[in-house]
């Protein structure tokens, strides 16, 4: 079995140009959203949202509808339910644990009924290299730009509210509205990530890079930048390595992202 083979690499690169662009965009928003996922303690919720997003995408595939659109619907529904019912971390965890298998089951049912190409099916769960076509890239880019624009506007109050909801609310920060906004952004970011890394591995983009960054940085400005850099290295590196093997990209992305996390923990330990 060949894990790397770069003999005709120059011919392969253009085939994945779309994936590379999509990956870079996802790394930016995944890295940024991830830092808020950390401060708001929502890692597990991300996983729950991604399963529902997968269900939405699978149902869309079955019905012949737009897959990106399907995954957005799934993710936003999950984000809405988690946001509305799970204000406290404890409640949230049980709601996520209930939603997750439900979403996964629904998705698997839709895939079982789908009679098209098998690669389409598997791709939703684990991601694949050449999955991103032009219309899909357009969707992804639009979502990413939207998320980025909103993030820039709400960054400071969202940061304040994420750290200290009481104090922020006392100062007039609309903490509830910001939670809703954040859940929408998170839902969109998950839906976009599902397209490239697949539903099972969204955490490697939305959580691992940020989790690694907070290990080595305490600055509220440097941390999100590092997180983006880590996500970028994982995705782009993963796509380029996967290309040499013709295997799904996710094992490469997740392995790089995991290694970065391990290295950051070691660096943290050494510093102390």
């Amino acid at each position, binding site marked *: 079995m060949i894990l790397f083979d770069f003999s005709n690499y120059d011919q392969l690169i253009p085939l994945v140009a779309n994936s590379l662009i999509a990956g870079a965009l996802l790394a930016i928003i995944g890295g940024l959203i991830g830092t808020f996922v950390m*401060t708001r303690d929502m890692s597990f919720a991300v996983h729950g949202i991604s399963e529902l997003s997968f269900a939405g995408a699978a149902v869309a595939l079955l019905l012949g509808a737009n897959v990106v659109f399907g995954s957005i619907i799934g993710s936003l529904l999950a984000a809405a339910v988690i946001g509305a019912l799970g204000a406290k971390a404890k409640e949230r965890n049980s709601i996520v644990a209930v939603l997750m298998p439900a979403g996964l089951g629904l998705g698997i049912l839709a895939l079982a009924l789908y009679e098209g190409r098998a690669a389409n099916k598997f791709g939703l769960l684990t991601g694949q290299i050449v999955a991103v076509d032009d219309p899909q890239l357009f969707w992804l880019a639009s979502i990413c730009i939207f998320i980025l624009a909103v993030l820039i506007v*709400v*960054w400071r*109050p969202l940061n304040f509210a994420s*750290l200290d909801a*009481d104090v922020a609310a006392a100062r007039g*920060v609309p903490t509830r509205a910001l939670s809703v906004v954040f859940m929408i952004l998170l839902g969109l970011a998950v839906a976009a990530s599902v397209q490239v890394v697949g539903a099972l591995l969204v955490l490697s983009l939305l959580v691992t890079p940020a989790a690694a960054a*907070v290990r080595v940085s305490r600055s*509220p400005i440097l941390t999100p930048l590092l997180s983006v850099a880590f996500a970028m290295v994982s995705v782009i590196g993963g796509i380029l390595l996967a290309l040499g093997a013709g295997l799904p990209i996710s094992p490469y992305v997740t392995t790089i992202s995991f290694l970065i996390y391990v290295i950051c923990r070691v660096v943290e330990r050494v510093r102390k």
Partner: protein
Amino acid sequence: MTAPVLAIKNAKLAYGENVLWANLNLEVMPHEFIAIIGANGSGKTSLLRAILGQEKLNDGSIELNQKPIHHGSRSIGYIPQHRTVDAATPVRAKDLLRMGLDGHRFGPSFGSKKAAARVKYILGCIDGFKIADKKVGDLSGGELQRLRVGQAVIGEPDLILADEPLSALDLAQQKTIADLLDQERQEHNAAVLFVTHDVNPILSMVDRVLYLANGKFKIGTPDEVLRSDVLSELYGTPVDVLRNQGRIVVVGTQEHDHHDHEEWS
């Protein structure tokens, strides 16, 4: 005559049959330090929440600087109870102060020299230079509450709301934080509403006491309110207020917790 910072008029808050307080009238003047005392469930924190617009009054009104309250305000500084912050949170002590200054603002922040200077000034006030670059998750309880005082005054508020900011601190730290708050509110001309179950650490700085119990309340100077006859009437049962070495102890309040006989008030 100066206008009150906060005016609570005929306020009533009830959950169903359970009336926390009714006909509550309180005008807080600039510079005034008011302690809100009462047992658990007497509606102390609910009063703060009502002032912040998070709890809807059943009756009456609350005005901040002669305007009806909204959901929070730039004119308010807030000091919460001590809670540990997750050690991984990428926020340093100086960033927490900065949030008190412009954390509420939307849109990108461009490095402001004025804001940075203000943060530095407050760090000086709270003796915080040593902890400025520490992660808030790594601060001790005392250090974090010291920072909270700074965060509350940095935006030049007219009113500081403090919700049991001394709980979970040892006695020496309680005194330090209370003195710091007193000094800072005088320097920044802010009135203070201080919710506490123990009036002793702040007794020397309190102008008036709002004592809540059994759906009733009493307002006045500590000497007017913290007396056996007054509190006995409020509780509807014999209560002894003991003074010992400058400390005040309320005995026999028949609260439904096992701290009955040692409730410091």
